[in-house]
């Protein structure tokens, strides 16, 4: 299980006692819905105003991978915790940095548990 190794690394890196609890994919889904879905959802979100298109993150990933990987993050099976953390804390192109007062380290671990579904690490 590569994933449990990664978790150990993440736990070691994060501060505070909070991080000692096991990440919750269920809570990850909730945090993802609040902070990520507006850009990474599957629905068509814009109509006449900006052209008919899915959410900006989904639209960008469609162009980036040209169908080789799912454009919707939640359908991906190749995401690693380290990659997700790097992107959320460092930003990537139009996607900006997220601070810890917005998404705490333990909430980020929950998102990672949700997105990696235990099948990648």
């Amino acid at each position: 299980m590569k994933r449990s190794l990664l978790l150990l690394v993440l736990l070691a890196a994060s501060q505070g006692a909070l991080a000692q609890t096991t990440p919750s994919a269920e809570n990850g889904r909730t945090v993802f819905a609040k902070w990520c879905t507006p850009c990474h959802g599957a629905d068509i979100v814009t109509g006449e105003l900006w052209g008919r298109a899915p959410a900006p993150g989904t639209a960008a990933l469609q162009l980036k991978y040209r169908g080789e990987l799912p454009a919707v993050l939640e359908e991906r099976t190749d995401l690693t915790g380290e990659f997700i953390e790097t992107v959320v804390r460092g930003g990537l192109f139009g996607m900006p940095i997220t601070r810890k007062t917005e998404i705490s380290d333990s909430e980020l671990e929950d998102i990672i548990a949700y997105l990696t579904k235990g099948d990648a690490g």
Partner: protein
Amino acid sequence: MALPPGLTESRFSEALEQFASAVGSDWVFSSDEDVALYRDSYSVYWGEEEERVASAAVAPANVEQVQQVVRIANRYGIPLYPISTGRNLTYGGSAPTLSGSVVVDLKRMNRILKVDDERNFALVEPGVSYYDLYNYIRDNDLRVMLDVPDPGWGSPIGNSLDHGCGYTLSPFRDHFGSHCGMEVVTPEGDVVRTGAGAVPGSDAWQDFHYGAGPTINGLFAQSNFGIVTKMGFWLMPLPEAFLIGTVTVPRYRDFAALIREASYLEDLYLIGMPWYTSPASGGAFIGTPPELAALMQDGWPSTGQLEEFVRAKGVPAWSLDLRFYGPEETVRANWAAARRRLAAAIPDAAFEDHDLVELPIPRDEETSFSHKPEVGIPALDAFMLVARNPGTTDDPPDGHADFFAMLPRTADAVHSAARVFAETYAEVGFPPLHHPFSIPVSYYSRCFIMGTVVPTWRDAERNARSRTLYERLVARCGENGWGCYRTAPAFQDLVVSQYSFNDNALLKFQEKLKDGIDPNGIISPGRYGIWPASMRNNRA
């Protein structure tokens, strides 16, 4: 690790300990990794020495903690930089104006103190986002509508304090203009309430905005005279219906009459934000299609050439969406009156009806509704502009810096500004985005904006080119008498320097206030060109 200017590492560590005893050690961020989260993702100086970076961040939970933080900062001479939700992307993000400042991150102060749907106001703390407030209103079935900017994760307080704007009726689109009552922690740590809130026991804080004597509220926006800890906002009562009516006009020269009529309707408060487009140029907000670029090859086209261009294309020159809010009977009647006036004023004007939308939008239809901000639904759809999109598939930018020039509300001004923008792009060697059919944006109802988005990069060389373009645009617009409404810290001294009437009398006045109100120069030094006396040589 960046340090506050003039502080030794040991003095700074001491101060950090004091901050920790004020707000709790979990809420002082000082490791390199944590402080990096306060970088501006869209910085025009990313990775360069001039990038504005914090030395630490503290996140107080209440007003008393904010006061303690301010007092500690005064003792140690540490510049503070307050942010509310810190999502000021394209205008500096959550990074300070002066490197080495300690960011005061107010995201944890996120209480919705009151929403009243009979007196139609909200009173909130700085960390309350538009999403939070919207959900609260919907969850409690309150009959008010928000006016939101494109990104829903910002906050009424942060957005309005940077003079942000939205998309509904004019009194609400101007977010600072629609506030009523503030609570502010002053640079010396006192707590001030403005308007009726200064009367002990008043229940009219969000009803009466003036109080008695001069209002000081304007001092706290785009500036550095205090840390705002509460703010009230007047809200629109939830209209029963929303209706869009489209008018198109065939000729290039019809634009002046179209603007005149839209201004009449808007200044009578009959319509919301007028939304101009030009079918002749393909309808995009910015961008020059090849056939227009070809027409511009030999200089700015004449009116005759432009009329011929539209005729040959067989599409209307201009289009305008009128947006009506209210009961079904009145929105339909207002649209009928608008049609009658426009038809009389502009020969061959054509009209298109759209379906009436009943409000509020059912919650399961919000996501796919394509006019979200126009009916107060927060979203992040507009990041489409920045994210990898069909125009930037293989080389997306890392962000952008918006430049909005403020013009008088006339067709002549719009056309002149489009020309200045196009010529400036050409001078700097960028492909033109502006052209004779460039359209204005009317966030602020009494003036027009000619705008552009300049790409920013995590690449010094490309950023340098973008800065050259941005700075040239500011200067050229200034020469034409057009100021800019808002900008990132990197350009604030330059933008403010355009407002130089009578030997910079305005800035000198602001500096006198700064010296009196913030003698130690603690709050956001340099924000919008206002430097404390000890740092006036910092000016770019």
